[in-house]
């Protein structure tokens, strides 16, 4: 009996670890190859404080949480600033180093002999020794960890995590500080791993470095992936398979090292096979928010245009955004050369010019995706030069992308809700301390987002997964998402390119209505018909410089510009 209870306890411990890793791997798309090391550091923190400082159990748990949280959040910080591969590398190296330290820093860790006689916890005056006595404690902790994991993952906070997982640049473009969320989720993950660690140390009463190897880290990744990423039920299933499989193999009566090798082989082969045939895992992520959608309905007869946020509507044509002397070079190429432009409020301005003239670079410079070499950008009399993109969005300047960049594994509605600023549910404090307020705000935001979708005519698609939409529809969702940022200066990068004709007129109509509602709009567009149809003014760019400006019709009529745009006739 005790044997089976022990198996259950181990399953629960690994489920806790799995939840902690799933928040990173599944929800945020961040690979941690050092989870066994986090687990180990937590276990040593608990064991050492219990042995040397005589701290009782719940306090050692807190010590483990503190140490591991700081380690996970702090050490990964530099890698989180750069591309994903570096994170894999850094955590891999971290795993090796921490394991090496556990082995060889004998003064602290007692090396390979490990730390024994870790005191058992006492609860209500009774020491917990047997698996049966431990089970309630472990189960309670696991329940808390699952609740926290669910709250973090399946909430507005988790929606931001998924958004940055699906498309980091797009997450920045809707005003989310990606770095902040990455550090936060790493810290949370470390804290949850420490819960398993402290329980493990007190439960075994003995730890040594061999529980915290790189192989264990790999197996934890396998556990999460096999169970199903971004689904906590899947993680429980994964833990059952991971702990249960060796117990099954026990019946083979083979030598222990052979059993281990078979287990490793089966796990490795399963991982390969799942990646090939079922990358979503045993229990896949729930993509459609269909069930939750029922609580949101558009008020009957409401005018969708009324959904447009009314903040700072200025249709008077006064300059809203001013850029002066912007320059940017890539190697020898001047992508932007002493550029100056003004966007008048409530008007549509177009940037036209041949391919490679630097139009998209201008957008990148204005919104902070690229820092300019020289020049400044002033928005509403506030200098925003070189601010990170998520900050310029907060000040009211947002953009779309030529290649749309929706969050592909989220619903259409979630794509739009995610862009709404100032959500209490995206901050951990309100999420846990005032859940009712967060839930109420969430309800309102979903209704608002549905309003934006109705404005672009896609309310009936709200529950569908974004990647399932046609390209033209995706462009409309991107427009709804842009409006949802509540920015009043909107930069649209080729809003009508690659889209069927019937969609083009619809998109143009929407752009006009957005401008009429007081938004300041700037479009980059190749299609000159689109430009003349929608723009009040146009800048003509060539080779990183603005060479003409005026009404679109006048620019089109200029033979010199036509030659630059279409090439010389005799070529």
């Amino acid at each position, binding site marked *: 009996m005790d044997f089976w209870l022990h198996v259950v306890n181990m399953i629960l411990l690994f489920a806790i670890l799995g939840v902690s890793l799933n928040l990173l791997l599944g929800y945020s798309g961040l690979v941690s190859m050092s989870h066994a090391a986090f687990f180990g550091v937590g276990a040593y923190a608990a064991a050492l404080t219990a042995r040397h400082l005589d701290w009782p159990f719940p306090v050692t748990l807190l010590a483990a949480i503190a140490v591991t949280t700081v380690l996970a959040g702090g050490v990964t910080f530099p890698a989180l600033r750069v591309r994903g591969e570096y994170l894999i*590398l850094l955590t*891999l190296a971290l795993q090796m180093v921490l394991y090496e*330290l556990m082995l*060889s820093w004998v003064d602290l860790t007692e090396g390979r002999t490990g730390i024994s006689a870790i005191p058992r916890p006492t609860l209500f005056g009774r020491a917990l020794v047997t698996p049966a006595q431990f089970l309630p404690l472990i189960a309670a902790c696991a329940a808390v960890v699952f609740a926290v994991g669910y709250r973090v993952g399946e909430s507005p906070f988790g929606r931001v995590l998924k958004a940055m997982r699906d498309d980091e640049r797009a997450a920045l473009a809707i005003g989310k500080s990606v770095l902040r969320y990455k550090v936060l989720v790493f810290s949370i993950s470390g804290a949850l791993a420490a819960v398993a660690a402290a329980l493990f140390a007190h439960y075994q009463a003995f730890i040594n470095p061999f529980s915290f190897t790189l192989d264990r880290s*790999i197996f934890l990744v396998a556990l999460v992936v096999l169970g199903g990423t971004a689904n906590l039920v899947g993680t429980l299933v994964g833990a059952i398979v991971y702990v249960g499989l060796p117990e099954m193999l026990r019946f083979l009566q083979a030598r222990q090292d052979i059993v281990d090798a078979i287990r490793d082989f089966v796990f*490795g082969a399963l*991982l390969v096979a799942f990646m*090939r045939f079922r990358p979503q895992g045993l229990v896949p992520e729930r993509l459609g928010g269909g069930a939750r959608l029922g609580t949101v309905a558009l008020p009957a007869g409401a005018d969708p245009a009324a959904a447009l946020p009314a903040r700072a509507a200025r249709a008077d044509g006064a300059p809203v955004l001013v850029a002066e002397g912007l320059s940017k070079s890539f190697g020898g190429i001047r992508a932007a050369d002493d550029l100056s432009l003004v966007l008048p409020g409530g008007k549509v301005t177009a940037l036209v010019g041949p391919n490679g003239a630097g139009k998209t670079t201008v957008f990148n410079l204005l919104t902070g995706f690229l820092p300019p070499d020289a020049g400044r950008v002033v928005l509403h009399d506030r200098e925003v030069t070189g601010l990170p993109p998520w900050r310029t969005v907060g000040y009211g300047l947002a953009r779309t992308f030529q290649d749309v960049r929706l969050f592909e594994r989220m619903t259409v509605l979630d794509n739009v809700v995610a862009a709404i600023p100032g959500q209490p549910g995206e901050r951990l404090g309100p999420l846990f301390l005032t859940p009712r307020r967060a839930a109420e705000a969430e309800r309102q935001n979903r209704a608002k987002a549905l309003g934006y979708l109705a404005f672009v005519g896609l309310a009936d698609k709200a529950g569908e997964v974004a990647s399932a939409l046609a390209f033209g529809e995706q462009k409309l969702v991107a427009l709804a998402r842009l409006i949802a940022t509540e920015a009043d200066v909107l930069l649209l990068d080729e809003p009508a390119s690659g889209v069927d004709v019937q969609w083009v007129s619809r998109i143009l109509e929407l752009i006009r209505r957005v401008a009429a509602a007081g938004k300041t709009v700037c479009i980059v567009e190749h299609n000159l018909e689109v430009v003349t149809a929608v723009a009040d003014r146009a800048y003509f760019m060539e080779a990183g410089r603005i060479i003409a400006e005026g009404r679109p019709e006048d620019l089109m009529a200029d033979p010199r510009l036509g030659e630059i745009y279409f090439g010389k006739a005799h070529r």
Partner: protein
Amino acid sequence: MYAAVIAVSAWGVALPLGFAIAALVGCLVGVGTELALYRPLRRVEATQLNIFLASLGLLIAGQSVVLVVFGPQARTLEGFPMRGIELGPVAFTTIEALWLAAAWVLIAALMAWLWLTRHGLAIRAVASNPELAQCVGVERERVFLLVFAVGSALVGLGGTLIALRDTASPTMGVHPVLAAFIAVFLGGIGSIPGAAVGGVLLGLAENMGGLFLPGYWQGVIAFVVLFVVLVVRPSGVLGVRGR
């Protein structure tokens, strides 16, 4: 990949032949995994993360196969005359001299191959822009296969070289490969001289650090170097700066 090394030591063939076999087996295993695993994965449009996870699966499965077939104990590779060499104050062994020579010869050969031959041109074309390379008639899948063949053959050689001084064991692969990763990132991805410089820097830092720090901190040095590079110059020492 390191199975090749063990096979050589177990069969007791002559050493030069052993190197050839190691390279060949490494090459075959590399080509095999590319054909059986990575190519189908690309065909179903698996994400980078999924491909990485599949390679992890391959690592643990492969390790356990080697373990079952060859047993867990470490094996030595004999047959190379090991003597000490002293040049003034510097002392090293013949094996280390061989390492040095082999490393420089292989690096030079690899660079020449990448920059002077049609195959090298094709590889660089695919690396910088796969779609465009395809347009001008470079077969992407064939280039991948070629890269896997050459890369894995080199791994087989490297493994044999390491096994000459140390021993071959089922888990020997992880540590050198991690060091190689760090060296490549350190030098800058996509630059052979960069990888060489990164390797030299890493080796220097690890061993110089050992002079000043207690032994158990030595393992931390590679990590600290990586950490500093990530903070100061994320594109690597000789890397091409990204846009």
